[in-house]
């Protein structure tokens, strides 16, 4: 069956925070339960965030994203998106893999 959520873009409220466990060579982030449902993500998956640049993150559904839609750890990947604001709105769609530091 066709997964239509792959073709859909949603606007998400995103916050950039320190997160030791997500910090590494692979782009990782947290996603709220509600937003994951919208995207059709169950427990974990991949999302592309588009703002200034586009970055693909591996995401895990987490209670720590409650209150916003996506929590990005501060660092190389989120710096490409956030500009001066660490709380922002951006377009999000599903994707197949996460960016890594090459």
């Amino acid at each position, binding site marked *: 069956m066709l997964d239509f959520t792959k073709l859909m873009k949603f606007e998400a409220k995103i916050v950039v*925070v*320190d997160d*030791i466990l997500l910090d590494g060579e692979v782009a990782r982030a947290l996603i709220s339960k509600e937003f994951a449902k919208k995207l059709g993500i169950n427990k974990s998956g991949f999302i592309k965030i588009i703002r200034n640049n586009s970055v693909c993150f591996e995401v895990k559904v987490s*209670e*720590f994203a409650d*209150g916003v839609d996506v929590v990005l750890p*501060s660092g190389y990947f989120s710096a490409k998106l956030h500009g001066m604001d660490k709380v922002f709105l951006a377009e999000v769609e599903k994707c197949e893999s996460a960016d890594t*530091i090459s």
Partner: protein
Amino acid sequence: MRVVCTACSCLCDDVLVKDKVYHACRKGFKLIKGEREETSINGEKSSLEESIKVARDLIDGKKLLIFGLDNTTCEAQEVALKIAKDFEATILDHSFIYNIQEFLKLPSIKLEKFRDEGYVSIFWGSNPHNSMPRLLSRFIYYPRSGKRQKGYEEDRFLVVADLRKSETAKIAEKSKSGLFIKIDNDYELIKSFIRVIEGKACKYLEVAKVLKELEKAEINAIFGGGGLLRNLKDAKLFKELIEKTGVYFVPTLNKANHRGYIEMMIKKTGFLAYDFKEDTNLSKDKILNAFKDCDVALIVASDPLRTLPYELSKILTEKKLIIINSLKSIIAKITKSVVISTEISPFSGGSMIRCDGVKVQIERQSEKVSDLDVLKMLMEV
């Protein structure tokens, strides 16, 4: 050996390094045992002397920008400032992102005093679980110390005001002696406090409970993180809140010696970023041009690609770079630059200023060159 951990501005002085690293959090362990940078020129291994000479040649007669410094010692920061003056350079750290100066004038409290006497702690736009992992267990919530022997169950009250349910918020939410206030507007929360004190209705109803708890003790504090410091354009209303409630304020600046840099710059230049060529303050709107206009950037103990907005760090990757750093950084990995590897701060000696303003001495425990040594060499060549 016993070391001071400089992974964040808790500056824990009880860390033991033997066969394993004891008592340090994951951040501290990553700093102490992390992969070290290698001294190199354009990706080729080089000697320290050679790198210093090439770096000095790069600097001479060029428009220099000095960036970073929040994670190095006070002594290294002072030499960096002297280099900035001598070479008419621009100097800045990450402070331009915040509105910190006015907040540092608010009545503050030492963490040890809060540990012994503090009752209500309000973490506002701050999640110490990640920025300063041991802060709650060392000073704020869990210690049974001084007048607070009954511990967190009875002798502390934890409030977290944040736009998301952070790890610290989770502790506050599930504890009987805690409260999580989910906020979407910092000004509205300040106004709510003031309005409840004045007997008026407000947006965030939870503040009534917080004010009731504040009455139970004399020592209470707000710990303001990046979320608060970045969002408030000025501290005027916040100052009114502090005056009306009588609470203390401590900024939770997570970079080890961020406060050291701020205090030094305010004392010596009156500003947080300075352009010595124009002999003027580098205001927020001039930062982009300062990055564009420089010929060479000297980066000290920082990885701009991880900490700066991409529009700024990308400019740096196109410049000639001198990187003085201990741990591997992405900027050193992806650019052709002069990289000088130094000892990590817990072993290099010097001093740093903790988030609450206390100066912490670090004993030198290694012969390897420190950031300070390298900066001095750069000046003296």
